[in-house]
């Protein structure tokens, strides 16, 4: 068995915020700790798409930034092609950032307003010393790949629409010939009609270039459409991970939303997420269980003991507060972090 292209093990990311200031009694100020990611492991295979789903505070964006080493890693490891890059510096860090590219959520903010499109797309090539002498051709090639006319090369970001800018960001991500592209809420700020264009483009590029995607989103329908495997996150911890087909069951009839029926979700949070999505078709026979979670997401400064989801979980019991649930293998390749998996599957 070949090693996965990207493997993250027990990743922990802690942000420290200024807490109480110094007092006479305690002269050294005590910072507060926010465990944005608390021990998440994931694998990404070549040419595959792993979808990371979660709401705010789930840590999904932080995981992406940790992989790119844009935030400090508290503990855990990152392996690219079997090589440990957790503490990489200098040239090896740069190589990591060549092989993994990122497309951010806000296409406008991630392009330097004072540089032309061509200059922005060319930057990865300049940084890594690629294609000396043929960079302009490559820029035009990339523009064509993402469906933009060659004349866009000498324009400025402010002249482009949101969808066009996101295409530019995708072209830029491809400029370093990466093997993995991290898409961090890449379509969240786009209109629905434009989102479809971008998603189609991403799928075509994946097929043509054998790219692996780490697709981060909060929209489950988009994640289902794009992913081969899906991981559900809550408050910095993994709740469930499975192949897409195991998690989302294809609806039998045209106007039906019979998703989340067994075998589907094996974790109460996944079931709640599926249930919370408004039916895309009001005419649908919706045999999903209506499950509206009560309360709000707990503060990451003081996460609940044991299972972090227990404060909003409809099937929580006393034991849930005692220990962090270990992963339970529901089926090959399907894991759930819940001590009451059987009840969860009945939700």
């Amino acid at each position: 068995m070949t090693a996965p292209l990207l493997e993250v093990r027990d990743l922990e990311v802690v942000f420290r915020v200024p807490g109480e200031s110094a007092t006479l009694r305690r002269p050294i100020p005590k910072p507060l700790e926010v465990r944005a990611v608390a021990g998440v492991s994931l694998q990404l295979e070549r040419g595959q798409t792993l979808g990371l789903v979660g709401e705010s505070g789930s840590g999904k964006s932080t995981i992406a930034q940790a992989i790119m080493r844009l935030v400090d890693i508290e503990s855990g490891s990152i392996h690219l092609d079997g090589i440990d890059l957790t503490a990489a510096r200098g040239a090896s860090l740069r190589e990591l950032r060549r092989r993994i590219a990122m497309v951010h959520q806000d296409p406008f903010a991630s392009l330097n307003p004072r540089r032309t499109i061509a200059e922005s797309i060319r930057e990865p090539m300049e940084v890594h010393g690629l294609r000396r002498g043929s960079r302009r051709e490559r820029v035009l090639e990339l523009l064509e790949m993402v469906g933009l006319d060659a004349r866009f090369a000498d324009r400025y970001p402010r002249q482009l629409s949101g969808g066009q800018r996101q295409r530019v960001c995708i072209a830029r991500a491809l400029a370093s010939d990466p093997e993995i592209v991290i898409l961090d809420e890449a379509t969240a700020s786009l209109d629905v009609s434009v989102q479809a264009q971008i998603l189609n483009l991403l799928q075509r590029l994946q097929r043509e270039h054998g790219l692996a995607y780490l697709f981060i989103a909060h929209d489950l329908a988009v994640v289902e459409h794009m992913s081969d495997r899906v991981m559900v996150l809550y408050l910095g911890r993994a709740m469930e991970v499975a192949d897409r087909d195991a998690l989302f069951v294809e609806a039998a009839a045209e106007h039906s939303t019979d998703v989340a029926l067994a075998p589907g979700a094996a974790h109460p949070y996944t079931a709640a997420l599926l249930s919370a999505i408004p039916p895309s078709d009001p005419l649908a026979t919706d045999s999903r269980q209506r499950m509206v979670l009560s309360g709000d997401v707990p503060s990451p400064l003081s996460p609940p003991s044991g299972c972090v989801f227990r404060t909003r979980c409809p099937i929580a019991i006393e034991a849930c507060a005692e220990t962090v649930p270990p992963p339970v293998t529901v089926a090959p390749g399907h894991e759930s972090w819940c001590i009451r998996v059987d009840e969860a599957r009945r939700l």
Partner: protein
Amino acid sequence: MTSHAAAIVDAAPPAPVSGWRQVLDAIVRRPVALVSAAVLLVVVLAAVAGPLIAPYPANAVDLSRALQPPSGAHWFGTDELGRDVLSRVVLAARVSMLVSVVSVTIAFVVGVTLGLVAGYAGGWADTLAMRAVDVMFAFPVLLLALSIVAILGPGLTTAMIAIGVVYTPIFARVARASTLSVREESYVRAARGMGARPLGIIARHVLPNVAAPLIVQTSLSLAFAILSEAALSFLGLGVQPPEPSWGRMLFDARGYLDQAWWMAVFPGLAVFVTVLAFNLIGDTLRDVLDPSGREARR
């Protein structure tokens, strides 16, 4: 169907107007800016081609023609040594421009470097650089000039160094403030994510975006540098006679204010008009380049 959809490809927007053309446009459209630009052009011309334009040499002493009011032969009159005031004003432009350009260049290079590094690196580098800047801020021009005079003796070089040091802090602060805000932008994060080196990021992303407030600050500092030079020369710490300098000319005119008003008025006007022109151009540049007003005045 496919061909139809392909035909609805996004049309490329028209080519944008280059930054420089925008600036030129803005100046041409505003009468005030246009006049200021014209004035500056005249001053630069005087500085560069002074000896060719000036009707008389700067130091043509002719005591028989001393203290004559403005006339056909001497448009600005003559001073107590019979020297043509107009010629001296024109030739002094060279000194003023030289001192202000060199000193502002020193201030710019040192200040912006400090500010960029402090702003981007943060941490102790930031603290160190900014404390150094604070020390420089505290020095009045005169005190510093005196100290430098004690070491180097009075003269052109002294003036340039003193003014340069005194204006460094403002460039450092402007550069640092802009760098701090740019550093947090998504596109800088994207650049880090693609593996760019810090120097590359500063050059490609930070500098172009902090350029605007710095350009504005430069034009304003040039204006004040001229004033400072005049002040230093007035006190005898800058350019030494017989080299003409507006400040020196004002100094020399002190004793003759009631007899020969033209000795003070014309050099004074020259300073005033030049400084005003720089200021007004600076305002226009700011309106065009940096409408958010991030730069500071000194």
